[in-house]
């Protein structure tokens, strides 16, 4: 372990900048975006510097820690605000600050007409800070702070245009869904503390071998719940589609490249738990598998370009989760896919933003068509991302996704077959819906209004897209050459000496199968959507399409099973409180009030009545004497 004193600046700079921009208010309108971008770029520079420094060290010395201050200390519950930068976190740091900076640059142009651009950049910086804290925290509790911080930033950014009620609702939904996941993370931390007396990664890792299977499984499942909430995995995925209400750069940064992959980070970071908890791992795999198909199916039916991409994100994260669930062989692959996905999906989202920018914020793909001619750079960069995501060699997605399919098959036995076929199917559907998206948007006949004038975006917007496109092309090859990423991550992920398991199918066969699946998907989509796309979504579609359009009924399910009963419960409790609990209190009051009302009649103001009462009193007295002396 190496100690460092400047890791904190990675977080402090964007945090400070964010606070400054928010506090200064309109004064900072003129230069706020520049400061934010500069800060983000500096964070990236620090990241690069740290990466080079780390690269130059060897072995255990590569990990860097910094203790900032003692945060909470009660009895044996000791949590420091400390940071840990190791091989895993540096990947994320570079991704977050790198893609983040590009998106900052992009946003300068994209948001230039918004009166609240400064506020937008403040939120972006807040997000960067929180996300860096998430990946740099050296304990689960520190991670939790970042975890909620990105949730807050996401909430603020989704609801950036919260004067529209639907957007505000989307933001709320995202936050609440994340909170469900947070319950998982909280409980995982609590179990860890009860089991190991520590909540730091190091402490938990040291204690894990001594803990019971049940405890580890419980922690694993709770972490999975957390990951599902943050990474939009089944059954907590429904918020991601609505989260597209935020400005497009936000969708690119938060809801594609970085924040939603935090779940993958959490699982890979907790490898020492999952390695010892096979049931939890199985659940992870199942959740990943379901989500990758779930997302893919939703993607096939969406006409909103951003929602289609969001569904795709969901599906791709499903791949990552699945890979992570496969244990030591999969962690690094999951991270690799995460990184390549970060490039191509962010690139495609920015592309979508560019299209919207040129088309007056239109998002319905049925109103696009043939835009490629008018926006060549956007088309080119988007196309490269497209090739990457469907897994055409030698683009980035090919390396990572192919590996996932491969290890899925290698999981062994019937599990291997099921997972392998699921991932293959996913790949085919991915190819289908992405082709559909590209064809409907950039190729084919034009279906837009006469009023729209598609035009290429300014350089500030296309430059980041271009850089990301380079990433989508080259990153896979880079990571894969000589297993560089796997080897780099191996010390953290405990994957040293892990055998790839029994090979069910030869890698070449898997690649072949994957390619065939992709070709089939592309072919069908091309045939179906090259021409004759109606400008309005047809209504006479199969019930499956309808269900897919409605996010496979997840919202309907949530509404029927959680929301409505919850509302009924709330109303019932409000009534119970008023009529029953407070009713009892008021009943006691009214008993006293009623009896005093009765007694008050005696006090009628007539002296004679009082005299009568005296006589009655005397009577009582005499009676007593009479009885006593009997």
């Amino acid at each position: 372990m190496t100690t460092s004193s400047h890791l904190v600046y990675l977080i402090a700079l964007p945090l400070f900048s964010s606070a400054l921009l928010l506090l200064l208010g309109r004064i900072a309108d003129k230069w706020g975006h520049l400061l934010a971008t500069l800060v983000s770029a500096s964070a990236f520079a620090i990241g690069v510097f740290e990466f080079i420094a780390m690269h130059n060290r060897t072995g255990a010395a590569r990990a860097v820690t910094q203790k900032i201050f003692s945060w909470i200390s009660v009895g044996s519950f000791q949590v420091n605000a400390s940071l840990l930068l190791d091989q895993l976190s540096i990947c994320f740091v570079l991704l977050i600050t790198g893609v983040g900076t590009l998106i900052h640059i992009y946003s300068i142009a994209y948001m230039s007409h918004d009166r609240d651009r400064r506020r937008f950049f403040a939120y972006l910086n807040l997000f960067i800070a929180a996300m860096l804290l998430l990946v740099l925290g050296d304990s689960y509790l520190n991670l939790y702070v970042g975890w909620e911080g990105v949730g807050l930033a996401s909430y603020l950014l989704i609801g950036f245009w919260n004067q529209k009620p639907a957007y505000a609702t989307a933001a709320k939904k995202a936050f609440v869904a994340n909170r469900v996941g947070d319950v998982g993370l909280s409980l995982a931390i609590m179990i860890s503390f009860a089991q190991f007396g520590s909540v730091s990664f190091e402490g938990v890792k040291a204690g894990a071998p001594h803990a019971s299977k049940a405890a580890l499984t419980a922690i694993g499942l709770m972490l999975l719940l957390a990951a599902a909430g943050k990474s939009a995995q089944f059954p907590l995925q429904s918020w991601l589609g609505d989260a597209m209400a935020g400005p497009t750069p936000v969708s690119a940064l938060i809801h594609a490249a970085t924040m939603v992959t935090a779940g993958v980070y959490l699982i890979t970071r907790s490898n020492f738990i999952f390695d010892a908890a096979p049931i939890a791992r199985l659940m992870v795999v199942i959740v990943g598998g379901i989500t990758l198909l779930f997302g893919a199916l939703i993607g096939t039916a969406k006409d909103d370009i951003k929602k289609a991409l969001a569904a795709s994100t969901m599906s791709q994260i499903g791949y990552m989760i699945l890979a992570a669930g496969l244990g030591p062989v999969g962690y690094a692959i999951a991270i690799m896919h995460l990184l390549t996905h970060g490039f191509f999906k962010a690139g495609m989202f920015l592309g979508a933003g560019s299209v919207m920018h040129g088309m007056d914020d239109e998002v319905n793909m049925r109103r696009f068509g043939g835009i490629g001619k008018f926006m060549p750079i956007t088309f080119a960069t988007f196309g490269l991302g497209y090739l990457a995501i469907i897994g055409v060699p030698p683009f980035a997605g090919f390396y990572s996704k192919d590996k996932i399919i491969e290890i899925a098959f290698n999981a062994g036995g019937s599990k291997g077959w099921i997972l392998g076929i699921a991932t293959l199917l996913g790949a085919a559907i991915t190819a289908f819906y992405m082709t559909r998206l590209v064809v409907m948007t950039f190729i084919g006949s034009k279906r837009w209004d006469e009023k729209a004038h598609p035009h290429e975006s300014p350089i500030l917007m296309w430059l980041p897209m271009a850089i990301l496109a380079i990433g989508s092309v080259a990153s896979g090859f880079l990571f894969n050459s000589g297993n560089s990423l796997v080897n780099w991550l191996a010390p953290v992920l405990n994957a040293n000496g892990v055998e790839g398991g029994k090979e069910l199918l030869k890698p070449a066969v898997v690649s072949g199968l994957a390619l065939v699946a992709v070709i089939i998907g592309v072919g069908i989509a091309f045939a179906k959507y090259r021409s004759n796309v109606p400008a309005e979504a047809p209504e006479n579609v199969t019930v499956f399409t309808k269900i897919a359009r409605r996010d496979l009924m997840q919202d309907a399910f949530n509404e029927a099973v959680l929301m409505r009963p919850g509302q009924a419960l709330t109303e019932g409790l409000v009534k119970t409180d008023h009529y029953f609990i407070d009713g009892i209190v008021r009943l006691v009051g009214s008993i006293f009030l009623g009896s005093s009302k009765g007694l008050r009649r005696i006090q009628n103001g007539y002296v004679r009545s009082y005299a009568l009462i005296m006589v009655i009193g005397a009577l009582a007295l005499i009676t007593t004497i009479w009885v006593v002396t009997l």
Partner: protein
Amino acid sequence: MDISNYLYLSAILFTIGAVGVVVRRNAIVVFMCVELMLNAANLAFVTFARINGNLDGQVASFFTMVVAACEVVVGLAIIVTMYRSRRSASVDDASLLKR
């Protein structure tokens, strides 16, 4: 004759006086009833003195008379003032307490 007959008479007169206080509305009559009750008590005192063979009962009776005299003087003065202000000697008209 049994000497306690006086006591019975005293009890009866006292009771009649009490009823009068409670039932009658004219303040003056109410006062008279109070006097009747006091007199009944006096009779009992005097009888007790005779039964016990000492004069303490008679002394008590004497004091009662004096106090009764005081009471009548003040009470009647109150009735006069009351009558002056509300042109009525009915005790029911002086029922401001209920408000």
